[in-house]
């Protein structure tokens, strides 16, 4: 055997080994999530959430929703938030220096006046231009903060500074929350004395093509457009399997920026959201966990499998590309900022499992996949690789990807069964066949671009335009 042959075998074995390693990881996650889901659903059947909504002993919550140029839908979005039923609630809308008429619209619609308000700047931010309260007691829960533009992280930090309550719920203003979303999100903070629950996340689902009336989701449909439909599949996999398993393990590292609750005291002690990264949601959770580990305080990051928040997914390749590029940069930036934890036993599960998992599965996976693809294609071209073997390897990886997605759908059907229409399920099953070819490949490409952009020190968020939610057509 020549040196080149040995090299080829070694490289092929490396790729094969890595593929098997990934597969084992996914199999473990898929199976491990089952127990947690079952336990949650059973436990939940004993819960009367009305109790929490009315109790004076319920924790005080501040919802923080940053808004930038959201003038088109801001009134409806705020109305939707105002309809949340929870007695100890404060809603803070942070106008992040919008260039449109968002603030004027809010002032007029909610009878706002510029109030005397001392903002305790516990986390440094861009300057606050004013805090607005309503003259109308119906809107007494509402607080609108107008500030200089500083990005989402900065706006969220202003919200934390302004907040008067112990827990903060950070959401995207254009998200649609389920009526009992806050109740479900808050409950884990009350359920244990063994640990301090520092953050809770909920399942985010895709609202494209769903029927929305007055800021409320009235009927769930599978997205009609291809890209949002493929993302639906991806979200089911990520939230129902991935995060549920990590939550069970106690190693959850990410809570979606679209909807998550945090212990404000810990968030402030950690310095709030980091505006130097575009992955501020993940970075905050990692930093909070790191803080708890370093201070040896027992803690938990909890996760709720109920679909609590609905968001509009990108429907064009251009916007989706920007999103994936940003996610990649955010992940790498976070991993880099906290590299001290990598296989560091001092950080327990976080250092020995969660961080290495993110490093291997989220950061390295697209790079290895991309390099592997180039490598095999080049070697096929030069006749250096057994084509039959390479293709069967590709087929195996592809079929495993499809299988994992189908398993995700199975879990969805067995738990929440959101897409009740048989046609929707069939379409979702068909989507599993093309998702690895379209969305996954696209994601890998933009992850590579994200890596390159990061090397070029690009730090922009990338514009995220949204089409808005549909309302049922009048017949």
């Amino acid at each position: 055997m020549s040196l080149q042959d040995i090299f080829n075998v070694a490289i092929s074995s490396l790729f094969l080994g890595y593929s098997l390693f990934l597969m084992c990881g996914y199999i473990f996650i898929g199976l491990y999530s089952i127990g947690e889901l079952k336990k949650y659903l059973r436990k939940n059947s004993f819960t009367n959430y009305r109790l929490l909504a009315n109790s004076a002993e319920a924790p005080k919550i501040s919802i923080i929703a940053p808004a930038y140029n959201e003038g088109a839908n801001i009134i409806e979005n705020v109305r939707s938030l105002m309809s949340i039923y929870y007695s100890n609630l404060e809603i803070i809308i942070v106008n992040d220096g919008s260039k449109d008429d968002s603030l004027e619209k809010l002032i007029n619609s909610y009878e706002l006046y510029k109030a005397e308000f001392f903002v305790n700047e516990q986390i440094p931010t861009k300057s606050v231009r004013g805090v607005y309260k309503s003259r109308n007691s119906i809107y007494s829960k509402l607080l609108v903060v107008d500030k200089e533009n500083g990005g989402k992280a900065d706006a969220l930090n202003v919200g934390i500074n302004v907040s008067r309550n112990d827990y903060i719920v950070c959401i995207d203003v254009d998200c649609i929350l389920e009526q009992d979303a806050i109740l479900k999100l808050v409950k884990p903070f009350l359920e244990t004395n063994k640990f301090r629950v520092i953050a809770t996340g909920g399942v985010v689902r895709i609202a494209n093509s769903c029927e929305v009336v007055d800021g409320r989701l009235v009927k769930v449909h599978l997205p009609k457009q291809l890209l949002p439909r493929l993302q639906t599949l991806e979200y089911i996999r990520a939230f129902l399997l991935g995060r549920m398993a990590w939550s069970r393990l106690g190693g959850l590292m990410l809570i979606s920026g679209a909807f998550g609750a945090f212990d404000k005291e810990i968030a402030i002690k950690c310095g709030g959201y980091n505006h130097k990264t575009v992955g501020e949601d993940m970075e905050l959770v990692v930093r909070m966990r790191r803080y708890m580990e370093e201070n040896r305080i027992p803690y938990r990051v909890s996760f709720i499998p109920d679909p609590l928040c609905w968001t509009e997914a990108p429907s064009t390749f251009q916007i989706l590309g920007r999103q994936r590029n940003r996610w990649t940069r955010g992940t790498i930036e976070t991993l880099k900022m906290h590299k001290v934890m990598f296989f560091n036993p001092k950080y327990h599960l976080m250092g020995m499992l969660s961080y290495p998992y993110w490093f291997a599965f989220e950061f390295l996976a697209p790079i290895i996949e991309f390099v592997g693809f180039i490598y095999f294609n080049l070697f096929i071209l030069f006749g250096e690789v057994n084509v039959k073997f390479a293709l069967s390897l590709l087929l195996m990886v592809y079929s495993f990807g499809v299988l994992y997605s189908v398993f995700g759908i199975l879990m969805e059907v067995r738990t929440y069964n959101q897409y009740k229409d048989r046609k929707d399920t069939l379409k979702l099953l068909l989507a599993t066949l093309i998702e690895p070819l379209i969305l996954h490949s696209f994601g890998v490409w933009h992850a590579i671009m994200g890596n390159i952009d990061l090397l070029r020190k690009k730090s922009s968020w990338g514009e995220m335009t949204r089409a808005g939610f549909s309302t049922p057509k009048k017949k």
Partner: protein
Amino acid sequence: MPGFNLPLLGAAFFAILIFILAVYILIYQRLIRDTEAKYKRWDFIADHTIRDAIFFDESTSNDTDALSVPESEKLNIPDRLKRLLKNKKFRFRLMKKILYAKSDVSGEAGENLTNLYRLLELDKGIDKMLQSKSWYLNAMAIQAIGVLELKEFRDHVFRFANNKRGLIRVESQNAMIKFDGFEGLRFLDTATYPITEWQQIKLLDELSHLPDEHFTGIEIWLKSVNDTVVIFALKLVRTYYRFELYDQILECLKHKNQEVRRQAILVLKELPNPQTAPILISLYPGETGKNQILILFVMSFVSSDEDIPFLMNLLNDENNEIKINAAKAIASLGPYGMDMLESHPNVNAEPLSQIIAQIKEESK
């Protein structure tokens, strides 16, 4: 082995699994649809029977003992329902429905539901559920016993009050209150597991439905080695204004657990006593930052003019949160307090000027 291709074999295996799972999903979803339709029919019958039971009026009934006598004919239980009772799933669903309905009604209507439960012999399965190895079934049975106040199972419930399974424990503790009212809180005497905040909310809600009563035991729970029991006892003192326990509350201010001390500070807000402000002031330097802020919050309800020097001094604190709360406490003393606030040398400088402006606006 010639021709052996492991990846291809793997792909074929996965493909078979995909096919099986996909077919299963479609069949399962079909079954869900059928089951939902069936449940809809079941619910209609169950709801109708439950409604009849809730509005059943003994005084207008020909047979005054109709509900308490296990003769289904007297309750007009439809034949359909009698047949369905043989179905285990229907019984379970009906049981849950009765439980749910019972949580929303009280008095005679509630008793009628308990009688209906017995009449349908749903209580026959309780023993089996209690003996089951499934925590879910255990908890379900205990919930049923408590909500429906099935006295014959009362002793079974007590066994579970200190169970290692949280949910079983919670349901058992709730059931004890259902049976014995405030006396049911006796489980706190021996509670070794934590009483979570969620459970505390549930217990306080359960107690809020009972007529006020001067119950005993709090003084023991305030000395419990289980910190969560102490915290809950403090909440009871606060909720039921137990002024006579003032001295015991002061003891809790020395507790090693800062959460216990925190609750104790909060209790003092509800128990007016001229000693409170000086005690809180003496406590202040040794407390955690979070508890210091709480002390100042409570001071705005209990302080007097004599405390102004202490509070004025805190306006120079580096922590703005302290400044805000001290200023609020001073302002709570009325016009004199406001005058004192405005006499502070930094009154025109940030952040004090803004804090005072906010307090003035909020007090309008």
